[in-house]
């Protein structure tokens, strides 16, 4: 299990406007493409140098492809990264201010302290 790689997906998609839209509209395709092209990039390194060992397990891949932020919370993905990206993708579908954020909280309401560990 790689909380780091989940976070890396959320981080790299969130900072790219085109990827935000692509992930919103075609999540399975985007996750598969990202895992085969970006997952092993060392972000602050020269192009051409890369890691060789980073992959999602099936549960992680499915959580991302299913836009399943409840599962991502359970898996220990960084909650700030998840929240920020999911606001960017889905807040627009709600009429009332903060309605998406409140629904997000409600869907996590079965979690109590201590929350899943987010240390990487």
């Amino acid at each position, binding site marked *: 299990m790689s909380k780091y790689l989940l976070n890396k997906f959320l*981080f790299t998609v969130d900072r790219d406007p085109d990827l935000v839209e692509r992930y919103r509209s075609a999540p399975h395709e985007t996750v598969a493409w990202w895992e085969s092209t970006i997952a092993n990039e060392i*972000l*602050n390194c020269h192009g051409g140098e890369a890691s060789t060992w980073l992959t999602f397990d099936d549960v992680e891949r499915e959580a991302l492809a299913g836009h399943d932020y409840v599962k991502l919370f359970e898996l220990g993905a960084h*909650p700030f*990264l998840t929240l920020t990206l999911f606001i*960017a993708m889905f807040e627009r579908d709600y009429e009332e201010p903060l309605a998406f954020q409140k629904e997000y909280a409600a869907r*996590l309401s079965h979690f109590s302290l201590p929350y899943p560990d987010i240390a990487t």
Partner: protein
Amino acid sequence: MATLAAVIASTHHPFYYKASTAPPEERPPFADEWVAKITAFRETLTRARADVLVMVGSDHFHQLWLDNMPQFLVGKAPFYDANWYNEEREFGLPRMLLRGHEELSSHILRGGLDEGFDLAFSNELRIDHSITCPIITLRPEADLPIVPIYTNIFAPPLPRPARFVELGHAIRRLIDTWPSDLRVAVIGTGHLSLELGGPRQFGPHGPDPEFDRKAVEWIASGDIERALAEVTLDSLWTPGNATHGFMDFMLMMGVAGEGAKADYADSLDLFHTMEAYFTWYPNGVPA
């Protein structure tokens, strides 16, 4: 020697910019009270007549990332671009450009290293809303040079609360011994109880009003001893999953000093989180 003209600790609420600049028909109902409080708070910096600002904040996974995560980092650059695409997208924050003060950056880096803090540094740092929010609230002209200091309150493992206080003490000593005629203000922002991306987020108040009440009292009275007795890395999960940002307030209490009562203290109970504003004048209240 330099003069420590003011020590300022504040929450950094990224919604303030939009709430305060929206056309009247789009302003939220709490905007007027918020603007009034910020305007009064801003005056506490204006009165200090600072020449340079040391800005303590925390990168929210913008430039600093898990493949190379510093615990404490000092910017040393002639300029700092500021705010990021996702802050523009979510909060409507403007792109900014701030001047740096490399001489003071060098002094803090050298002195901090010599005091036993293995500070990371950056010669090209794009800063985020943890530093630009207080620029927007306290010095919207954005005309003073800055020294940004980033802390890790975000990506565990984190330094312990006592280490934040100790770094605050060190920053105080380093400014007090900086051979310069300039007037320095140290401005740091953090959080009271806060939950982001969890079940207690975006409630009608902060997730733990009792923690907020105690925290405001510790800060306003300079009660570092009590804060350190009650706050640990583990305990900070309880008031809300983003409450480790309170350690930046503890750093600022370290700058102000043990037992230093704030000369100005105010707060505002907003939905989602409590705002809190504090100013100390270590060398006397300016005329």
